[in-house]
């Protein structure tokens, strides 16, 4: 088996992603029930039917999307097993482990029920459903970290190191940042050796680090956190912004100054955001644009060398975008948002 096989499968799977016209049809559905009926005529059919037997409404869609996403990436991991591509796929799937641990920690921190936390988990990474359920049985944040350490799960070390600070200031961002930093550092380290595939993965991880840092800087400036405190939440190793540039951004007084500063970088598209959104410090608008940028770059990987890991990355982002779009549609249907407004929220690639 080689990249020819993986590439063909990825392109075959991509051809089954929902087209623009199908998405537009979903947008025009009058309510959630008709949306669910429509989704039964898509590749989500099996998961929707399974979910309909257990729940209704938006929960049914969310469950089906999670199941489909998990199943899809398990499938990719299985057919790339013992291939060079597997190590790259695993790097991308580790982010779901990080996401799941964050979700559990958040849930335990604010004492949400295990059922509620479980419904938010996506077991697409190395930690399967059984592992996550066992973690959920732990009574608090400390016990979750201890359990990870007992199982010698890689994320335990960074969490254990950051725990005293979390215990002192009671801010979960400390643990979340430690997890992010560990994930990105580990990912970059595993593709440090020169090579085409390593370069592709490195570029994408660095791009994500940049986007994550920009989002952090914007939040810190909005919340008036001083540069010295804010610096602790940044992740090193980005492509465009080194420590010096990030520190400079943190000293800027307002969000519009950050946007102006970014005009000389590949993030100049942020200058097109309506001035009113920037002046009123609506960071969500900027974050949405950054997310759009990341997804477009990711899906653009399909145009890179076909006999490489690029098609897997392209598919990863295309699938992620599809699921995000369906979630946006289902949530907007619950909130009775008009189709025109809804279309503006979607990300077409």
């Amino acid at each position, binding site marked *: *088996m*080689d990249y*020819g*096989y*993986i*590439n*063909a*499968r990825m*392109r*075959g*799977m991509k*051809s*089954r992603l929902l087209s623009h016209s199908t998405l537009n049809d979903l947008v025009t559905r009058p309510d959630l029930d008709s949306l669910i009926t429509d989704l039964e005529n898509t590749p989500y059919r099996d998961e929707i039917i399974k979910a309909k037997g257990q729940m209704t409404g938006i929960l049914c869609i969310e469950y089906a999307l999670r199941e489909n996403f998990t199943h899809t990436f398990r499938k990719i991991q299985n*057919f790339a097993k013992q291939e060079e591509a597997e190590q790259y796929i695993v790097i991308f799937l580790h982010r779901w482990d990080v996401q799941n641990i964050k979700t559990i920690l958040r849930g335990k921190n604010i004492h949400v029920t295990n059922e509620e936390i479980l419904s938010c988990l996506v077991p697409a990474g190395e930690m399967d459903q059984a592992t996550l359920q066992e973690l959920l049985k732990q009574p608090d944040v400390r016990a979750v970290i201890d359990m990870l350490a007992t199982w010698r799960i890689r994320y335990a070390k960074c969490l254990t190191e950051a725990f005293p600070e979390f215990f002192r200031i009671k801010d979960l961002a400390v643990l979340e940042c430690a997890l992010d930093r560990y994930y990105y550092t580990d990912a970059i380290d595993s593709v440090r050796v020169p090579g085409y595939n390593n370069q592709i993965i490195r570029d994408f991880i660095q791009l994500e680090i940049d986007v994550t840092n920009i989002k952090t800087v914007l939040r810190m400036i909005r919340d008036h956190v001083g540069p010295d405190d804010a610096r602790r939440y940044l992740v090193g190793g980005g492509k465009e912004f080194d420590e010096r540039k990030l520190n400079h951004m943190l000293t800027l007084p307002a969000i519009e100054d950050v946007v102006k500063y970014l005009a000389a970088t590949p993030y100049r598209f942020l200058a097109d955001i309506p001035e009113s959104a920037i002046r009123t410090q609506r960071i969500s608008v900027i974050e949405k644009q950054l997310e759009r940028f990341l997804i477009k770059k990711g899906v653009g990987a399909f145009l890179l060398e076909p006999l490489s890991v690029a098609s897997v990355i392209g598919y990863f982002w295309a699938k992620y975008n599809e699921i995000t779009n369906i979630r946006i549609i289902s949530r907007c249907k619950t909130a009775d948002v008009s189709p025109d407004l809804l279309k503006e929220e979607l990300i077409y690639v």
Partner: protein
Amino acid sequence: MVGWEVPIGAAIAFAGGAIGTGWAQSRIGAAGAGAIAERPETAGTIIILEAIPETLVILGFVVAAMILLMVE
């Protein structure tokens, strides 16, 4: 009188075509298997694509035969 170089030449012509065909078919086969796994309806097209490199070995065979028959 035909020397040793004629059958060697014919063998090289045939072997080159055969190796080229084998290599091409392995790559097309791998990609084809992936395509059929995801879209079984493409099986007919994939079988035709898989057969295309056969022309290369046939060409090698013809050249080898011409060398053997025509060189005296």
